[in-house]
């Protein structure tokens, strides 16, 4: 079994970074001092990712206030809207408001990536919103229909991928909770497929991962199986493994095996058992293991502790370790 591991979303901020950013808001420190702590914490996240043998590094996306903000702040047609609940959690994002058909600003997203990634793009994982979740979670006042918007966002994200490929990035994870929370049907489903086709066309041999979370993925599998992506990921805290449709997929299967909704540490042997069961159902080309949903639902310390399950599970799966 080929096993790959990596983060699937933002990592929590360290307590030092929490204090620093709070102090910045209260006027008790300077932006320069906070920048130093950002850089130091990103370095710590990258070091942790390397120490745990994760296949790509992310730097934790600590500076991104939420998944959409870099786009809402830099792409054309957007403004930043009100606080909105993030799925079924007690955390919030600022809903992007789309006032006109969106347009990319070249270079803007690359400039917002964790600086640590820019130094070694080939071993980095770029995390971006998927076109469907992006379209559903913004306030669309552009006049564009939802299917047209999903497709357009797919094309724009494809352009983003093309630019980042040019800089050496090769692995792209698209965060797509809404595909399982509100599975698209009809024209919306076709628009999702078309959107990912546009992304796939820009990949040029790179790896694309669609990561779903927030609900049981079972109803969305017919669509997920149609997406032209390298890996489809599901959160095993939401989807029971015996409900994953059987049959060879011929591509990677992502399994969310670290649950950010609880501080309880995963038992590597139990995780390995479940991964083997999923593997036997799908016979994927490889399994991609990671947190089921972004780990920033946890504080820094338990998130760090729980992540240690990944190398232990990999060992259990590839070396037969208990």
């Amino acid at each position, binding site marked *: 079994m080929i096993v790959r591991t990596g983060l699937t979303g933002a990592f*929590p901020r360290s307590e030092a970074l929490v204090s620093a950013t709070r102090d*910045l808001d209260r006027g008790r420190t300077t932006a320069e001092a906070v920048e130093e702590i950002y850089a130091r914490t990103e370095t710590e996240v990258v070091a942790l990712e390397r120490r745990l043998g994760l296949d790509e590094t992310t730097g934790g996306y600590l500076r991104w*206030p*939420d998944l959409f903000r870099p786009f809402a702040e830099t792409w054309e047609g957007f403004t930043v809207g009100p606080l909105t*609940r993030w799925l079924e959690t*007690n955390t919030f994002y600022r809903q992007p408001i789309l006032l006109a058909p969106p347009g990319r600003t070249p270079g803007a997203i690359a400039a917002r990536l964790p600086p640590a990634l820019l130094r070694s793009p080939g071993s980095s994982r770029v995390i971006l919103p998927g076109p469907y979740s992006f379209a559903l979670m913004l306030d669309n006042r552009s006049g564009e229909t939802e299917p047209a918007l999903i497709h357009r966002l797919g094309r724009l994200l494809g352009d983003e991928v093309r630019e980042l490929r040019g800089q050496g990035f090769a692995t792209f994870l698209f965060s797509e909770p809404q595909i399982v929370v509100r599975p698209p049907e009809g024209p919306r489903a076709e628009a999702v497929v078309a959107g990912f086709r546009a992304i796939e066309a820009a990949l040029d041999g790179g790896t694309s991962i669609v990561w779903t979370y927030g609900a049981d993925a079972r109803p969305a599998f017919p669509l997920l199986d149609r997406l032209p992506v390298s890996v489809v990921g599901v959160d095993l805290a939401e989807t029971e493994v015996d409900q994953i449709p059987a049959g060879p997929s011929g591509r990677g299967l992502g399994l969310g095996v670290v649950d950010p909704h*609880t501080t*309880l540490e995963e038992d590597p042997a139990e995780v390995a058992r479940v991964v083997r069961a999923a593997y036997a159902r799908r016979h994927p080309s490889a399994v991609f293991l990671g947190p089921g949903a972004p780990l920033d639902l946890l504080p820094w310390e*338990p998130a760090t502790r729980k992540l240690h399950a990944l190398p232990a599970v990999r060992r259990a799966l590839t070396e037969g370790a208990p």
Partner: protein
Amino acid sequence: MTHGLFPTQEIGSLAKPRWQILGQRSEVLDGPAKEELRDWDARVGFAKEAPAVRDALLGGRPRETGPEAVRDLGALFGLRFLETAGLDRVYDGEARRIEMYEYPIRQMRGFRFGGHVRSFDNKYYLKATVTDEVRLDHPYHVDEFDFVKAHAHAEPKLPLTGPYTLADWSYNEYYLARQPGWKGRSARRAAQREFVVDLARRAIRPTLSALIDHGCRVIQIDEPAAGTHPDEASIVVDGFNAATEGLDAEFTMHICYSNYADLLPTLLEAKRCRQWAWEFANRDTAGHDGYAVLKTLAEYGDQREVGLGAVDVHRDAVESPETVADRIRRAAKYLGDPGRIWVNPDCGLRTRSLEVARAKLESVVKGAAIARADFENPRR
């Protein structure tokens, strides 16, 4: 206590006045804080009940009085603020509380706080993990209630965070670990139910019981998390029923910013809930009737009272009394019974200035009076 048609009530916290915040820190009041204290004292008349505290604060001698006395004065202010607005049921504006999660959890054992979680931007909150069986150190909010009871002229009503919300805002470690095998969806759900019911039985119920022993007759159980996971409505119900089992008081349940229809009919199994206190005004916009969901409640034949959110706490624009009256009339039509309606703000008014909060409360009272007159004198 009996009430006429459309009695009015508070629903949650008020913004803390600047003089209270500075006074609690034993800081000398600045000009605006002094002016605020004098102004509101003139309008609602509270400081004369504690002249020594008032004089110490206005005289620049906060250390002479101490933070607890300032909190008492804050509670008196909240009480008089709500009473003089004309509300029938009041509390103290939650003058002694800072938030609704950490304080209750810190009165219990079995929890460990383990760091900050980002709420949004650079805002964070502490979230505890339940690591052992929940146990109550001692019932809480009791001293707070005693003070309100001793000073209230109107009927007091105490708000308290419900077991489902406390559990949902915590990490479940202890109860999840007890589930055998893979901690997937069904294990998580079972563990959450066990956690909520344990919290309800071991911590919330003893607290409610102590409050009732101290004379508390009306208790609002706040469950803002209820709408976050509509498929867990049965767990909300189990928690509510376990918390109130065998207790004799008027219990109400406050939920806000949720799709209530998704929680029905399961929520109706909350046996001792006498009133649903829900937010409606926030969703009552041009082209969208925010009260239409009451038809669903009526279709299920539910006969309980409704605490009708009639003013939006997220906007500064103050609803006119006529707007409030119109909302009451619509609700009465959908429920088919005006006698079951209480009128209140959608939620706590703490995000509004005291000036806006007061104006909204006055609209609630005046709007209820208009609607009451309509129903009592239909040919007028």
